[in-house]
């Protein structure tokens, strides 16, 4: 794709608000998608991720805010004039048309001559590796094939942006993983901007260049998968992406963002943690600690005393369920094959970690 055309695919959302009665489905979301970027909108149901996608597509109109695509404001442009590709959750192929007619449909709507649109539709069908299926009806294809046809239909007119609304949620697990890789490769190949809605964190982390995590209509964090996992900025992100142990505590002193500072845990332990945002002295805190960042030391060593309740072998690691001195359940993960000792249930151990791995969030009042 030409450089100038690539430039067109940027999306800018500014102060987006959408209310349904008293509920704000989108509550002041601003974000920018770079041309050619793969952005995932990730959140639980009701987080506003689909509403944001529908607002970009033009099926919903915001109560406040702007939608800019390729430098052009389209907030109030009807969906058929936005020139975007869209793949729906259910495949939504036109059942009365053949596969090839389905794919040629957007070209027909754009006035492309018959011969040219057949040629382009066949090319799109090749892109999704279904070249011999053009004359079939959608009902004769499997779910995965139908979704590939839907993708071909969405990219056949080379739109600047491809919107995908949980496109893989109807497929079984193996096919879903295969399609994740396939869609990612396709996106790199044709250099299209993709906005992809999902509630599956693994899917978001696997496919996206950046992930926007949403909750209750608010943007919680926007960042690369690694940043979201390693440096969550809110307790919600820490809980939603991957597994996390949470502790409650109180700040032993004031700290600025990113600083290590002393913390008094409610279970009595004195530790150091990394401040996420500025924290006032004596503030209530929520601390997040990833299971794989915990190290096991013999009982009596400095750290957090715990008792192993269960050891669950999952192939590439062993997950330990432990009980802390205060009765709280904790998780620790020991990677397989690295020669670490694996304690048996009932054994007493001490948990240790690097101070920087405990992330402290000021608790909401």
């Amino acid at each position, binding site marked *: 794709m030409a450089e100038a055309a690539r430039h067109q695919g940027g999306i800018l959302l500014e102060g987006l608000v959408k209310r349904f009665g008293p509920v704000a489905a989108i509550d002041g979301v601003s974000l920018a998608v770079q041309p050619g970027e793969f952005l995932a909108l990730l959140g639980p149901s009701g987080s506003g991720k689909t509403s944001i996608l529908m607002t970009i597509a033009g099926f919903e109109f915001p109560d406040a805010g702007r939608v800019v695509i390729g430098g052009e404001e389209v907030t109030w442009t009807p969906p058929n004039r936005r020139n975007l590709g869209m793949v729906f959750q259910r495949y939504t192929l036109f059942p009365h048309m053949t596969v090839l007619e389905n794919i040629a449909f957007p070209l027909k709507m754009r006035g492309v001559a018959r011969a040219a649109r*057949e040629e382009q539709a066949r090319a799109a069908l090749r892109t999704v590796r279904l070249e011999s299926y053009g004359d079939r009806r959608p009902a004769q294809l499997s779910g995965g094939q139908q979704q590939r046809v839907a993708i071909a239909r969405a990219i056949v007119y080379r739109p600047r942006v491809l919107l995908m609304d949980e496109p893989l949620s109807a497929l079984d697990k193996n096919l879903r993983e295969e399609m994740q890789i396939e869609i990612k490769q396709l996106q790199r190949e044709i250099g299209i901007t993709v906005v992809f809605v999902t509630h599956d964190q693994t899917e978001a982390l696997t496919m996206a260049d950046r992930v926007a995590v949403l909750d209750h209509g608010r943007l919680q964090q926007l960042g690369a998968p690694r940043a979201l996992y390693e440096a969550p900025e809110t307790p919600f992100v820490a809980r939603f992406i991957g597994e996390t142990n949470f502790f409650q505590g109180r700040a032993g002193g004031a700290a600025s963002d990113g600083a290590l500072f002393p913390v008094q845990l409610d279970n009595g332990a004195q530790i150091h943690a990394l401040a996420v945002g500025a924290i006032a002295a004596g503030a209530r805190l929520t601390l997040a600690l990833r299971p794989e960042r915990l190290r096991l030391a013999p009982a009596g060593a400095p750290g957090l005393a715990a008792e192993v309740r269960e050891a669950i072998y999952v192939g590439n690691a062993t997950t330990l369920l432990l009980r802390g001195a205060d009765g709280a359940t904790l998780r620790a993960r020991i990677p397989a094959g690295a020669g670490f000792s694996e304690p048996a249930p009932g054994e007493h151990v001490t948990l240790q970690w690097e101070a920087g791995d405990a992330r402290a969030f000021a608790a909401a009042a």
Partner: protein
Amino acid sequence: MRAAPNPAGRMALNAAAYAVTVFLLLPTLIIIPMSFGPERFLQFPPNGFSMRWYLEYFRDEEWLRATFFSLEAGLISAVGATLVGTLLALALVRGRLPGRGLIELLVVGPVIVPHVALAVAMFLVFEQLRLTGTLLGFAMAHTVLALPFVVFTVLAALYRFDAELERAALSCGAGPVRGFFHVTLPLIAPGVVSAALFAFVISFDEAVVSFFISGLDRKTLPRKMFEDIDYNISPTLAAVATMLTLLTIGALLLGYALKRAMERRAAAAAGEGGDHG
């Protein structure tokens, strides 16, 4: 579902159902042999076989005029009711109408209001507008009468139709109008076609309103039949009734067959493909 508790009870139930069916159908069926009788008066059982009254019908200009008038009124009101009713059904399902409840009530109106009351009202209004005894008047009256059936039939088709396909059409660049003609209409076509046939049959059968708004020489077939039974109870009436019954059954069967055929085609699988346009 429960299995039938005892065969005797089941047989009794079947017998009752058949008895009711026969009771309902018998008068209609009796008219058929009567129409083939040779006598000058309606008689059952007929004491011979003759096509005389059918010939009589085709020779009688008044019968033929009434028939053609009925056909014209039926076709126009079928087209009118299908157009208006389909648009109305679309508006009710897709639109965000402020007076939705009121519109629904108006649509159901002709079904609820007694036909005679409606006929009197139409007569009074049409008389003022000089529409009685005109084709336009009949077309309008029958359109109103057929409208609820069209709206309900098309509504049912629209509820079965996946509205997400319209969004898909929009995302493909088809505006609402082109989306309707390329995606919605082909998929609800069985419903629309059977609605049109239904509307035609309603108009063609309609007697009460026709009784009021017919003119001296512009009258429908049912109205002509009423007159005939008043003045000269000839077996031509039975011949006409027989043909009317067969035509109505034929139209409804055609509608049913079309609907089945199109549903089967839409549902799945006829994949010969070939023409891409």
